[in-house]
């Protein structure tokens, strides 16, 4: 099969970008979309042209590095997979495929199809953790966790941090990403002590990064390669409301032990 690619090329964030058209050679339908880009890049290099920059790493749908909006959908036509798990057999011979970078103010473009998703790290650094020092925890079976809670926490914890939710959301909102981490930790007994400060800090970091708001369209859930549910956003909303009502916890009184 052969396809025609319309790819966004942009040298860096400072310069203007535009679409370029590339005709592929004959492809094996069992090739992944990224392998198809590899083939094009090899061709470009042979012709002395600069290859297309695109992000990728594990190529098995778990590292969250690959991105791309393929024909209007982050990670390509199929639900529940990442771009690296999208195969050429999903397209027809002769198709024109539009390939764009993830677009959001909070994801500034680096080059061609590569954007920076640092904002996600900043949000996690604000509160996406349970404070625990190596060496101090109790025995792993000391605290029982209901299987239902643990399973639900795992559903949320599967997030690969790819940013497709932001890319698909008409508001470029990061709610699904943030709520997945808030819910994962908030559902477990181990996450309770920091539950409300966590949600508050993470939401504030999210807002500061310039993401949009939630319009509950469900687009994020539809494109998520791990099919994470927007019910987690409701959970985050609830926790944040409780956090607001609780207010700031009292600062400890000054003075240390001698």
């Amino acid at each position, binding site marked *: 099969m052969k396809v025609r690619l319309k790819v966004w090329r942009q040298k*860096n964030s400072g310069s203007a970008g535009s679409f370029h058209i590339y005709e592929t050679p004959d492809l*094996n339908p*069992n*090739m992944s979309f990224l*392998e198809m880009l*590899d083939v094009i890049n090899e061709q470009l*290099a042979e012709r*002395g*042209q*600069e*290859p297309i*920059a695109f992000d*990728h*790493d*594990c*190529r*098995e749908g*778990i*590292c*969250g*590095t690959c991105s791309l909006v393929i024909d209007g959908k982050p990670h390509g036509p199929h639900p*529940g*997979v990442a771009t690296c*798990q999208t*195969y050429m057999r999903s397209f027809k011979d002769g198709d024109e495929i539009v390939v764009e970078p993830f677009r959001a103010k909070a994801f500034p473009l680096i080059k061609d199809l*590569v954007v*920076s*998703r*640092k904002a*996600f*790290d900043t949000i*996690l*650094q604000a*509160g*996406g*953790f*349970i*404070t625990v*020092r*190596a*060496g101090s*925890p*109790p025995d*792993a*079976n000391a605290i*029982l966790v209901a*299987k239902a809670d*643990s*399973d639900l*926490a*795992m559903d949320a*914890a*599967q997030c*690969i*941090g790819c940013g497709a939710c932001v890319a698909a959301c008409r508001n470029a909102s990061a709610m699904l990403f943030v709520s997945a981490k808030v819910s*994962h*930790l908030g559902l*477990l007994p*181990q*996450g309770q002590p920091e539950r409300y400060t966590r949600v508050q800090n993470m939401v504030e970091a999210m807002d500061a990064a310039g993401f949009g708001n939630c319009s509950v369209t469900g687009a994020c859930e539809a494109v998520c390669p791990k099919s994470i549910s927007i019910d987690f956003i409701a959970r985050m909303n609830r926790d944040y409301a409780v956090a607001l009502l609780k207010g700031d916890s009292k600062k400890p009184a000054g003075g240390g032990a001698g």
Partner: protein
Amino acid sequence: MATLKSNIPSGQLAQKWTKHRFESKLVNPANKRKYKVIVVGAGLAGASASATLADLGYQVDNFVFHDSPRRAHSIAAQGGINAAKNYQNDGDSVHRLFYDTIKGGDFRAREANVHRLAEVSVQIIDQCVAQGVPFAREYGGLLDNRSFGGAQVSRTFYARGQTGQQLLLGACSALSRQVGLGGVKSHTHAEMLDLVVVDGHAKGMIVRNLQTGEITRHGADAVVLATGGYGNVFNLSTYARGSNATAIWRAYRRGACLANPCYTQIHPTCIPVSGDYQSKLTLMSESLRNDGRIWVSKKQADRRLPHEIPEEERDYYLERMYRAFGNLAPRDIASRAAKQVCDEGRGVGETGLGVYLDFSESIRRLGEDKVRERYGNLFAIYHEITDEDAYKTPMRIYPAVHYTMGGLWVDYNLMSNIPGLFVLGEANFSDHGANRLGASALMQGLADGYFVLPATLSNYLATQKPENRVTIEHAAFREADSIVRQSLQRMLETKGKRTPASFHKELGKILWDHCGMARNKAGLEKAIQKTAALREEYSKNINVMGDGGEWNQALEQAGRVADFIELGELMCRDALHREESCGGHFREEFQYTASDPETQQGLVNPGDVRRDDERFAYVAAWEYAGKGRAPTLNKEPLAYEEVHMTTRSYK
């Protein structure tokens, strides 16, 4: 010649770690904050080490070439993590985990290291659960376990088929917390290109920012490498495309010894190669072997569909050859057996390089729902890649490069022969011998990062004075900086005809053919010649587009491939010199035959690996001898105090 002092503490095996911790030098809390430590990599080992060192009070600088620490390839580990918790009451213990690991490694690992690993394994699970890792649980709320290859107890903790992901996100959350608190400075898109050695001690490194192309120098009191394995030397592997050996290779060129490079693990259950365009092989978790049965037809070149082959014409070869462990035989054994049946012409699929992994019996016994609950995501991955439904027809699998047991040589403190250079996780050689058991890589990465390095690092730091730390204007920094710049410039200016990818592909083929699942003298000699020739061609004919002052993926790849070519040659040298078979290193000349007494006693099968403990019970630590010169071989003898080296039998 390098001096290799293993620094294994004296005393009873089970007491060594406790004793060593007590005898280690300490740095007092007020002084810790004056020390600066560089950690390269943020996989399980790097992230956990960075977070824990910062918790202790050290100033930590963490470097990753990815856009975020969370992308490290530990994230792709599927099956689970071992720990000697004995929650199942099935007779597990620290000693049993230790023994299984030593035996699994074919008696080529360091005894004291492995025992320490088994000891801290229980703490790892506690730590991860406290961090919020959502391990699988039973209905009563207790943790669940599954069994894994090379063990007869269920000691593997898991989080669906994404255990590595959950453990890494746990470690990264600890790292994130410390970044937020200012204890760790996180450098992303930052690739280490050289180690800076000042007066024989590792004191810093040179880094290229992949986004801007900027070259920077970073000084510290100690440098920790946790940069993973070098399996991508084979080009096609289950590693991430970005996984590379550049950090350890550049350290090697600065004098760090590289130990046992020929010990590579070929994982038995991967999706077979389907075409020449392929960039990546995908693993199907070993946990599938709990419920799947591996078979091929008894006939050669049997073109029938699997369901057309009647039960009595199927050869469940692992169950036949290794009765006690059956489908759960260790990885090296399962992989070689698959190769053997395919070499006999009994392989399945279009290429004939594949065997069936069949779930029909489990589906009959447990029901499709139960199988779906256990392995649903793996079946889905299989379906995506092959377009086949494994609930209806058996999976086709074939071995693929998955892990490297070899790595930089380290002592008991995880310090290399360059003082101040520490190496953790897959990047070091220490714990798995010649073969790693399933679910032990995650255990080792976290053991090194959370518990071992934080306890042993102070031994070195206590001998160093932070006020004496040299600045990055020191001659050693300037020299390393200019070497890095020159080598980047050379690659950009060669303007040859071949892309880095094409060199990588060719290298991979040479190594897979001659230094893969089976090796022999003639093949290895040929491979050494071929890799040398490839290196020569590379220097004249590499083509890198673009320039160095910007995001340039071809330039990144070019540097990594150059290192792989040199490393590939060293692997072949190591494989050639090791005239025995052990674990993942199978030399065709050294195998059991039907007439050997061990075979006749029923301990092994003909074709099983045959060790030579008299000549090769040592760690082969290779030392760089300069450009164009053969590397020097250093030997660290493996002295076993408690365990007796025996024939490794899984029958």
